């Protein structure tokens, strides 16, 4: 009925094969803060926020902005992008919650 749902059905196999990389937020820090990702490959970042407060994953370079409520998890799709360093930070605690996606 809806275009997104229709596309979801047709691209289910491709999404199932998407590599998953887990990142945790603890005490307003990202673990790991350096995330290695293969170049020109779509990946799925599974971000678990173990803090009771919300955080927002933000990266202008990756064109992504996503809120993660306290004690919950979200999925962020990245790429495919070319080799390079793509910084990201937590919008709620930008002084501590910082990291970089290393695409190689």
């Amino acid at each position, binding site marked *: 009925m*809806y275009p*997104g749902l229709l596309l*979801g059905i047709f691209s289910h196999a491709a999404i199932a094969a998407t590599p998953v990389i887990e990142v945790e937020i603890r005490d307003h820090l990202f673990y790991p803060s350096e995330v290695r990702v293969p170049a020109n490959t779509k990946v799925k970042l599974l971000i678990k926020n173990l803090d009771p407060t919300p955080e927002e994953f933000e990266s202008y370079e990756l*064109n992504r*902005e996503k*809120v993660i409520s306290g004690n919950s998890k979200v*999925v962020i*799709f990245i790429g495919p992008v*070319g080799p390079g360093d793509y910084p990201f930070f937590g919008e*709620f605690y930008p002084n501590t919650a910082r990291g970089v996606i290393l695409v190689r």
Partner: protein
Amino acid sequence: MGLLLACTTQALAGGVVIDKIYHPYVHPLEQEVEWRAVLQDRQPGMADNTQLYRFAYGRAISERWSVEAYLVTEKSNDQNFRVEGYELELQWQLSEQGEYWADWGMLFEVEKSATRDLWEFTTGILVEKEWGKWSGTANLYMLNEVGSGATHELRGQLGLQARYRYSRAFEPAIEFYQGQDTLGAGPAILGQIKLANRRKLNWEAGVILGLDSASPNRTLRLLLDYEF
């Protein structure tokens, strides 16, 4: 006579087709106060220098839904500044960004005229596709009017934007609009200024040139949006 024609054939929101381009994303926990202006010079059937201003408050109400309420005001050479209507808008994010070939969303809007027995219902599909530092966005709308002043015709409307993500503060874009008595295209610039933690000011400005004789010659569109 020109004003009479404008009043009898004009849709809501001044019949102005050129507006902002919507992106199919909802940002949970976010609120915004928005100001938008659309200033056009001359258009057949419309008063000269029609100016439309929208003042809005919006917020996300869940991870996938947001709501925004608008006060729409208008002025022109033939008419002093007045409240033209009220709008309520619901936006629905259908897919996760980057999950599929393109990102999808929907927009539902109801507008009530402040001066006439006229309601307008809008349903829109929002699509965005990313190519490296370029983002292409399409807004496709169907509009229907109800009330004693309604034309009872279903109308379509299209807005397209190609945006280059040069930097957070400055993104050049090209926009295209097609709708009732309007076919136009032109350049726009967009940007975001971070004021503090969780405090951002988004701005947009565009000059849309009419591509046929029924369209306004030039339309200036402006937007300021404070997110918190």
